[in-house]
C-alpha cells in the first residue's frame, strides 16, 4: 500500500443559499460537495472531471484549503488540515501549489517573469532557482526580463507551471490549465507536465472538463456530477469500461477527430 499524500474523508462544502433566505434567521444551506472520500497516493496524477457546476473546482479549492470545508476531513501528508487556521496553514503552503486556468489573469501584468517566478521564494529574478525553473519548463533564461503580455498563451501557462515548481512542492493542483489553449500549445503543456511529474516525483490533481486530455496525463480519474463522485477508477478501466451512465454520456459526447466514428 502506497502512502497517500492526500486522504479525503466525507468532505462536505456548503454555502448559504441567499436566494431562499427568510427575512429573519439564517439562510438555508446549499450543498456544493456532498461527502466525498478518496486518496491521492504520492507520485500519482489524479484527474477530476465533470460538467460545469459539478463541483470540481470547489473540490480543488477545498483540497488546497482556499475554502473551509463544512464537514469531513482532509489529511495532507498524515496531518489533518481540515480546520487549520491561515496562520497554521502557512508553513504548508510552499508544499501545496496551484496552476490556474487563465494565465493572463493569474500573472501580474506589471511584473517581469523573473519576479513572478521568484516572488514566492523571496528571490531576486537573477537567482539560479528562477532560471532553473524556467529551464525545466523549456523556456530560455532570458525570459526573466519579459512581461506576461509579451508571451503567447502556451508560454504564459508554462510560466504558471514554473512558478509552481520553483517552490519544490509535494503537490500541485492544476485547474483547467489547458482549456484556453490551442491544440498545439495544449500538447506542449501536457507533455511538459507529464515529464515534470516523472522527473520531480510530483503528485498532481488535474481538473478538466475534457476527458481526452485526462486520458493523456492521469493514472486515475474521479468523475463528478452534482457535487458527488459518481465514478472513481483507473484511467484505462474508465475509458474501456465506464461503469456509471454519466461517465458513458461524457465519453459519448466527445467529438473524436475521425469522421468514420458515429456520433
Amino acid at each position, binding site marked *: 500500500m502506497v502512502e497517500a499524500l492526500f486522504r479525503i474523508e466525507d468532505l462536505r462544502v456548503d454555502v448559504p443559499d441567499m436566494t431562499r433566505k427568510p427575512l429573519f434567521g439564517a439562510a438555508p444551506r446549499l450543498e456544493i460537495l456532498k461527502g466525498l472520500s478518496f486518496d491521492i497516493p504520492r507520485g500519482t496524477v489524479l484527474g477530476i472531471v465533470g*460538467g*460545469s457546476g459539478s463541483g470540481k473546482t470547489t473540490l480543488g479549492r477545498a483540497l488546497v484549503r482556499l475554502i473551509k470545508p463544512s464537514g469531513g476531513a482532509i489529511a495532507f501528508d498524515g496531518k489533518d488540515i481540515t480546520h487549520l487556521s491561515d496562520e497554521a496553514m502557512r508553513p504548508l503552503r510552499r508544499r501545496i501549489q496551484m496552476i490556474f486556468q487563465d494565465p493572463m489573469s493569474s500573472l501580474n501584468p506589471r511584473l517581469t517573469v523573473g519576479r513572478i517566478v521568484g516572488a514566492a521564494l523571496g528571490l531576486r529574478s537573477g537567482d539560479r532557482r528562477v532560471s532553473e525553473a524556467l529551464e525545466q519548463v523549456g523556456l530560455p533564461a532570458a525570459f526573466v526580463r519579459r512581461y506576461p503580455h509579451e508571451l503567447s*498563451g502556451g508560454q504564459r501557462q508554462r510560466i504558471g507551471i514554473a512558478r509552481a515548481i520553483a517552490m519544490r512542492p509535494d503537490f500541485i493542483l492544476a485547474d483547467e490549465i489547458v482549456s484556453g489553449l*490551442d*491544440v*498545439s*500549445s*495544449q*500538447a*506542449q503543456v*501536457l*507533455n511538459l507536465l507529464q515529464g515534470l511529474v516523472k522527473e520531480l516525483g510530483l503528485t498532481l490533481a488535474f481538473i478538466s*472538463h*475534457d*476527458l*481526452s*486530455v485526462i*486520458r*493523456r496525463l492521469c493514472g486515475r480519474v474521479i468523475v463528478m456530477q452534482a457535487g458527488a463522485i459518481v465514478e472513481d477508477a483507473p484511467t*484505462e478501466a474508465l*475509458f474501456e469500461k465506464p461503469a456509471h451512465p454519466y461517465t458513458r*454520456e*461524457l*465519453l*459519448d*459526447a*466527445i*467529438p*473524436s*477527430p*475521425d*469522421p*468514420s*466514428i458515429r*456520433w
Partner: protein
Amino acid sequence: MSAFLEIRNLSARLRDTGERVLRSVSLEVPVGAVQGLVGESGAGKSMIGRAVLGVLPKAVEIVEGEILLEGRDLLKAKPSERRRLIGTRTALIPQDPLTALNPSRRIGPQITDRLVDILGWEKARATARAAEILAEVDIPQPERVMRLYPHELSGGMRQRILIASAFAAEPKLIVADEPTTALDVTVQKQILHLISQMQARHGTALLFVTHDLGVVAKICDSLSVLYAGKVVEETTVQKFFAAPQHPYSAALLAATPRHTDAGASLEPVPRAVLDAVSAEIAADDASWRRHG
C-alpha cells in the same frame, strides 16, 4: 455553378500597420453544404466569417478580392444593396450566448426585431414565426419562454434560442462562429446535432468556424485549414481525416487529442513545420507586394 458563397482572393490588412491578416483567401460554400474554417487562435477564421457578414472590425480593411453571394459581389455592391443581401440571405450563430443576448430585454422581441426591421414583417406574423421556430429547436412552451429574460435560461437553452433566431428568417447561409466552445461536452453534442438537423431540414449552407477538428469531423462536409490568414489546405472532410496533405494541417491533426486511443502521444506542431509554413507565407507576401 451552384456555390452559394464564393470568396475569391480575399486579402485584408490592418489599417495602422499594413500587416496582412487575410492572405488571398479563396473558398466556396455550395448551397446547403457545411464548410468548416479551422485554425489556431489568430489564424483569421472568425475574420472571414465577419467579412462575409460585413462586420469586420474598423481596424481591418479589405484590400482586394471578391465575396460573391449568389454570384453578386458584396464588396462592389452599393451599401444599401449590400445590407439588403446580407440581411435577407445570411445570419450568425455567435459564440457566447450570454453576451449575444441583451440581458435587459425579453427573449421574444430579440428574435422578432430582425424580422420586423429588416424583412418588414407585421409584428403578429413575426411573433408567430418566433414561436414556431422556437418549438422547432425543442424549446418547451415557446410563448412562455418568449416572455422570459436571458438570465432565466440555462446556457444550452440560450444557445438554442440563438440558433432559432438565426434560422427564423430562412437565410441561405449561416455563419456559426465557435457556437459550442463555451458549452459542456454533453450540451455541445446536443447543440451540434440540433444545428446539423436544422441545417439539413432547411437546406441552409453553413460556414462553421471552430478550432476543434473533432467538431469538424462530426458536422462538416469540407473544410479550409487556416494559418496566419492563409488557407493552407482546402479539402473534403473524408479526404482530410484520411490523409491531410499540407504538413501544417497534418501536424495540427496530430496535436488533437483522441480519447479513443490510449497509446498515441500528442505531438505539438513541430518547429520545422511552423518555419516552413511561415516561409511559404513570406514568399506569398513578397509576390503579392510585387503585383500590388
